[in-house]
């Protein structure tokens, strides 16, 4: 890994300049009356080195201590955000910044993220569960002083659904009447879409079907309002490439305003003087550091430069468990790590073989010995307790049954079964897990596994084009509802990528969408997931946790399954000493 500092030109060869000493040992180039003896030169180097280091002598106040005094939260935020336009972005780091700058109709409770009043101070739901009427508070303001009105929401939702914008998350709106048709260009008149500004402070949404998780959907950044007059100022609001999100231009309605954005360095937001609930906001400033390397981030944390890290390097977890157990945090996280199986490629077209593979994974050992971050073994696909839903069907871990199934499929003890290729993207953790599973399949079933490691985009491409046999995958819920985990497996679903299709499953997912009664709806999901776990186009492995470090002075920060933490409730309270 020297390559980074090698000169980039190839014409140079290291031997060009360096010549072997032509002098015999001990013979000196005699210089008479030397003013520059080598001793004095060495002394000079030593002195300059000392002077160089002396610049930094002595312990200083750390940034965290400074932040504590001034209510400045310093947060590691993963990667550099691709953009800060809520209608364009797709990632978690972006969301974590945007939730400080913008506020939707509803906002999140800091403890469990249930929807609480945001810009809307109250709402009514029609008896059939299809019409939501939001009553907007009159004191909600944009950061330029304009009032936030129902028309702003109408315009914003029109923007995200406008086909030319090509918003990747426009599908979040598809629960709304005609939203999909408008987004796909099948209808041109936006008045036919189920959004209506009844007056400045009343906003009405009409849904296609009663959608019990509708209010949770509203927490997603695709439902944040944007200030159209500002966007128009900097270009076409319905095209990409608009540069309105720069500091000094960005107009938001959230508890903070954007003041600084230095790419790959820091994004700074300051408390907004116009936010309606500004009295509750206690932080004066949040600095988001886009630190991609978990090791760099951990060192910054230990040096007192961060209050909160985004993640924790796998190799540091044990160190923290021993030395700083009170700083290491392990929160539940709404995500599943699993393997996809390409069901179109023999021999894995045979569900008995897929089942045999699924039954022989010792998940307990993977989470305990490999990951060590409090993850839960996954014996089903939807994380337990997702909006009150816990799958009843469980995958057994049963080696004997697996052996029987494999023999029944015609491969007793794996004999005659060609090696199976297991694809994963380059990463230490994926490799270790893949190796562990390779061992388990080999030892218990006699199945040979060939590990294939590909760079991220190559891996994604192989997955998309079904150019794999078994591959590593992960899914993080967009919203807290089993639908976010189960509707992806319908026939031809964009994120299915296994070639699996089952008409009964499709029917059940469609039925769940139409079922208004919450209990009955969850029952339909139970049936659907039972089919999924019987057919096994996927092998669930573990449920994620969010492992990170947090300093004790950060208050109002609770474990939430989406790792969202509404900043208006967060404050810093250093220990009294």
């Amino acid at each position: 890994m020297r390559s980074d500092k090698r000169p980039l030109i190839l014409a140079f060869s290291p031997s060009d300049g360096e010549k072997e000493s032509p002098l015999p040992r001990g013979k000196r180039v005699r210089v008479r009356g030397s003013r520059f003896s080598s001793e004095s030169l060495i002394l000079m180097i030593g002195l300059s080195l000392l002077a160089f280091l002396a610049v930094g002598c002595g312990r200083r106040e750390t940034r965290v201590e400074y932040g504590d005094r001034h209510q400045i939260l310093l947060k590691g935020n993963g990667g550099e955000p691709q953009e800060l336009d809520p209608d364009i972005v797709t990632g978690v780091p972006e969301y974590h910044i945007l939730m400080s700058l913008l506020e939707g109709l509803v906002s999140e409770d800091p403890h469990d993220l249930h929807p609480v009043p945001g810009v809307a101070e109250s709402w009514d739901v029609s008896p059939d569960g299809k019409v939501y009427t939001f009553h907007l508070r009159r004191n909600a303001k944009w950061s330029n002083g304009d009032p936030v009105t129902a028309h702003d929401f109408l315009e914003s939702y029109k923007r995200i659904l406008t086909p030319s914008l090509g918003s990747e998350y426009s599908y979040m709106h598809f629960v709304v009447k005609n939203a999909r048709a408008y987004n796909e260009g099948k209808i041109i008149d936006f008045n036919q879409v189920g959004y209506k500004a009844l007056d400045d402070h009343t906003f009405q949404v009409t849904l296609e079907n009663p959608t019990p998780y509708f209010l949770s959907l509203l927490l997603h950044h695709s439902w944040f309002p944007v200030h159209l007059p500002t966007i128009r100022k900097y270009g076409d609001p319905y095209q990409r490439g608009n540069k309105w999100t720069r500091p000094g231009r960005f107009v938001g309605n959230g508890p903070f305003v954007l003041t600084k954005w230095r790419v790959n360095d820091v994004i700074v937001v300051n408390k907004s003087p116009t936010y309606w609930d500004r009295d509750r906001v206690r932080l004066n400033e949040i600095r988001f550091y886009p630190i991609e390397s978990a090791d760099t981030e951990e060192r910054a944390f230990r040096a007192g430069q961060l209050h909160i890290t985004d993640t924790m390097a796998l190799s540091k977890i044990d160190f923290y468990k021993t030395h700083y157990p009170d700083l290491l945090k392990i929160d539940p996280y709404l995500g599943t790590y699993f393997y996809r199986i390409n069901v179109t490629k023999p021999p894995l077209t045979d569900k008995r073989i897929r089942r045999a593979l699924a039954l022989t994974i010792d998940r307990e050992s993977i989470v305990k010995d490999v990951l060590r971050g409090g993850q839960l073994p996954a014996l089903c696909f939807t994380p337990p307790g997702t909006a009150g839903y816990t799958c009843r069907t469980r995958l057994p871990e049963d080696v004997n049954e697996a052996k029987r199934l494999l023999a029944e499929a015609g491969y007793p003890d794996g004999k005659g079964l060609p090696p199976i290729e297991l694809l994963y993207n380059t990463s230490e953790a994926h490799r270790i897990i893949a190796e562990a599973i390779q061992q388990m399949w080999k030892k218990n079933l006699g199945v040979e596994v060939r590990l294939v490691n590909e760079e991220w985009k190559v891996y994604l491409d192989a997955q998309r084009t079904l150019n794999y046999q078994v591959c590593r995958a992960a899914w993080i819920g967009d919203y807290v509802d089993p639908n976010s985990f189960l509707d992806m497996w319908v026939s031809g679903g964009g994120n299915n990528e296994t070639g699996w299709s089952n008409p009964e499953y499709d029917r059940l997912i469609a039925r769940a969408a139409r079922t208004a009664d919450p209990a009955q709806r969850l029952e339909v999901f139970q049936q659907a997931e039972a089919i999924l776990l019987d057919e096994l186009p996927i092998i669930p492995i573990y449920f994620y946790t969010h492992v990170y470090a947090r300093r004790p002075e950060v208050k109002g920060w609770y474990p939430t399954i989406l790792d969202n933490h509404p900043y208006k409730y967060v404050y810093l309270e250093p220990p009294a000493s």
Partner: protein
Amino acid sequence: MLRFIAKRFLETIPVLFVIATLTFFMVRLAPGGPFTAEKTIPPEIQKRIEAFYGLNKPLFQQYLDYMGNLLKGDLGPSFKYATWSVNELIWSAFPVSLELGCYGLALALLFGLTAGIIAALRPNTLSDHLPMSLAMIGICVPTFVLGPLLILVFGLALGWFNASGWDSARDRVLPAITLGAYYAAYIARLGRGGMLEILNQDFIRTAQAKGARSGRIIFKHALRGGLLPVVSFLGPATAGIITGSFVVETIFQVPGLGRFFVTAAFNRDYTMVLGTVLFYAVLIIVLNLVVDIVQVWLNPRLRFD
């Protein structure tokens, strides 16, 4: 001399053209595209995004469009960082890399040359072996070991410096040392070799015989010739050092160009890959030209070529 510079300048145009063309088509050969993500984008949305960036046109048409914009100095929008253009990203990151590179290079020259000269004065004694062993270590210890090690000692244990970041003057110290160490070591070895060769030549002996003081001999007579190998190394080295280093920038969280150069390829950010490659190419060509001129100036024998 002017003719020489003009000739070299004209030579760069076809070189850049070839680099741009090769890079343009090579990045397209890699599987996946700028908009492949873990969550699949609905195909009609993908088509709209691609249309916006002109990726739906025939590849050769895209190439012509790109070259046309390139002539105007427009490197296009970044596909990954949608709000920034490639020009903006390069111009925000390059000054950082340049600054860090200058410190690194200054350190490298200061310590490298001093060590090289000291070593050459008394070859095969302790004052030769000590700096040369250090130089060997400098060449052998990789950045990703040296960087964290410095942070551990001076950042975490002693608390003199921040572990990462790019805010104050203090934040420049550790990355500059990490970046410069390898070059210092290399320069030390090259400098020693060059100096030894010169110090052994007749004109030095003549100077000594005539009773010139040692300082005068070293700095006036020997250094100029002894530095030639270092100077020819400095062209590519300067290019390498001021265009930023992915590893140093990642370890110290420095917002420089080196990271863009590497991550652009991972992101399949076509325009960003092309932009950084071309920028590097221009920089290397210019620096090599400067080195050639300096060499001619230092070495009269070259002036006739």
